[in-house]
């Protein structure tokens, strides 16, 4: 049974020129008959379908504004679809943004606890995992320093360590690998590999075709909210590279 099934998924946003954001605007709207600016619809995703088989990993690629992040937010549950079906089987953990949910004024320690609990661990579980998280992030010396003094690389390490400590069945990652230095990227990749070895499915959004090729079995290519192609990583990445005018790696020419 697939861990993720997405069927005819569509998401509409209203771009309202004249949204009544407040009572005062609402009153104004009542007295001004004329309709300034019509509500415009914007379909961030249109009839997207794909599935992720158990233990397999899927990459999502596409230029900016193609709907990648909207798709991830729908998968994590922060957004509700306008149309279509989503079925996710298994425990999810996500890393949508660098240090998402971290509070700058609090120490790394406080943030790890709170983030862990938001991601679905009990306090006791975070405590068990704490040493491991800190060790992975290599922040032993700085764990009691407020997060606002962390470099972006330090935040990325801590966020990644916390999100993966949840031991999910499905890990949803948005363009995080691009942040740290190369040694951190390698470390993340090897953590992802190790999780894949345990049967965890990864959904990875990335502009780095190298990461996609290294992690994903299949790739979904989105453009303006529509699925251009869904299939095996080699084929989709190759087509995308040609489309984008990116150089093909030497081995792909064979």
């Amino acid at each position, binding site marked *: 049974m697939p861990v993720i099934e997405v069927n005819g998924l569509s998401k509409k*946003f209203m771009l309202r020129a004249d949204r009544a*954001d*407040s*009572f*005062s605007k609402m009153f104004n709207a009542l007295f001004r008959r004329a309709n300034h600016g019509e509500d415009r619809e914007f379909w961030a995703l249109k009839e997207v379908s794909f599935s992720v088989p158990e233990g397999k990993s899927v990459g999502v690629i596409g230029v900016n504004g193609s709907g990648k992040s909207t798709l991830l*937010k*729908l998968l*994590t*549950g*922060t*957004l*509700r*679809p*306008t*149309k*279509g*079906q*989503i*079925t*996710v*089987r*298994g*425990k*999810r953990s*996500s890393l*949508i*943004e660098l240090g*998402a*949910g971290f*509070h700058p*004024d*609090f120490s790394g320690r*406080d943030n790890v*606890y*709170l983030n862990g*609990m*938001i*991601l*679905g*661990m*009990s*306090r006791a579980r975070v405590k068990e995992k704490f040493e491991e998280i800190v060790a992975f992030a290599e922040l032993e010396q700085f764990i009691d320093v407020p997060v606002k003094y962390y470099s972006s690389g330090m935040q990325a390490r801590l966020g990644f360590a916390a999100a993966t400590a949840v031991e999910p069945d499905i890990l949803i990652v948005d363009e995080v690998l691009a942040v740290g230095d190369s040694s951190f990227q390698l470390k993340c990749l090897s953590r992802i590999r190790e999780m894949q070895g345990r049967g965890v499915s990864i959904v990875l959004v990335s502009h780095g075709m190298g990461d996609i090729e290294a992690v994903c079995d299949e790739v979904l290519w989105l453009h303006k909210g529509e699925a251009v192609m869904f299939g095996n990583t080699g084929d989709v990445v190759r087509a995308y590279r040609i489309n984008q005018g990116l150089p093909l790696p030497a081995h792909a020419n064979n």
Partner: protein
Amino acid sequence: MSKISVSFVEEKEHMRHRLTRYCDLVTGLALRDVKMRYQLSVLGLYWAVLNPLLMTAVWSFVFSKIFRAEGIKGVPYVVFLFCGLTFWNLFSNSLMTAVNCLTGNASLLSKLYFPRVILPTSSVMARLVDFAFSLIVLAILMVIYRVTPGCKLYWLPLLIVIELVFTLGLAYIVSAVNVLYRDLGQILGVLLTLWLYISPVIYTLEQVPPGIKDYFICNPVGELIYMEVNVVLGSGVVDPAALGVTALIAAGVFLLGLLVFRRLESAFAEVM
């Protein structure tokens, strides 16, 4: 065609385990709230005590010395007022914090998924910390002014629970509505001030003229504060009928709050 379904099938988690997780999260967020409020001020948590004390000092001067207000017979007005304000502040401060709990956590809401209702719940729970400090000060004041506590003090925990249930229900409503209409955050302070004056905090229910008094049952917070203050300082007679009605209203508001929150919840991530 236009069928929408979202299902997140997770491994069957033991109900008790899930509850522990959510309780942990509520506590964690509440403690963060408390820390955040006090960590950058020199006096820190002392403010939890100083604030109501200062307010009581000013008000008791104005009301008892100038307006000649009286509280419960045989209880110094300062103690009476501080007691009422302690219970009032639990309600009022909870709502003032809750109204911004979703809008203030926009980044959290758009990036991570967890049951949203946890946020307003935790902002109400955070106020329990201030409330506890306030109770301690109340006890100290009672010792200083030699006020003997009422003999029906055992009613107090139940009354506080009912007050919390009512407060939570309203907190769900104001937090959710404030996401869509930020005006609520502006008007809430005024509404609460008004509410304070129609509640028996600076006066007792006995001083209210009979014609108006009948309407006071419609104000569950006033009713609760009246009972709480009486249980702590006065004769401590709890009218079971009034208590029953108030408890029912509180439960109703709680359920309504959850309902409203559910309805508006799906719009949160899009608006913020």
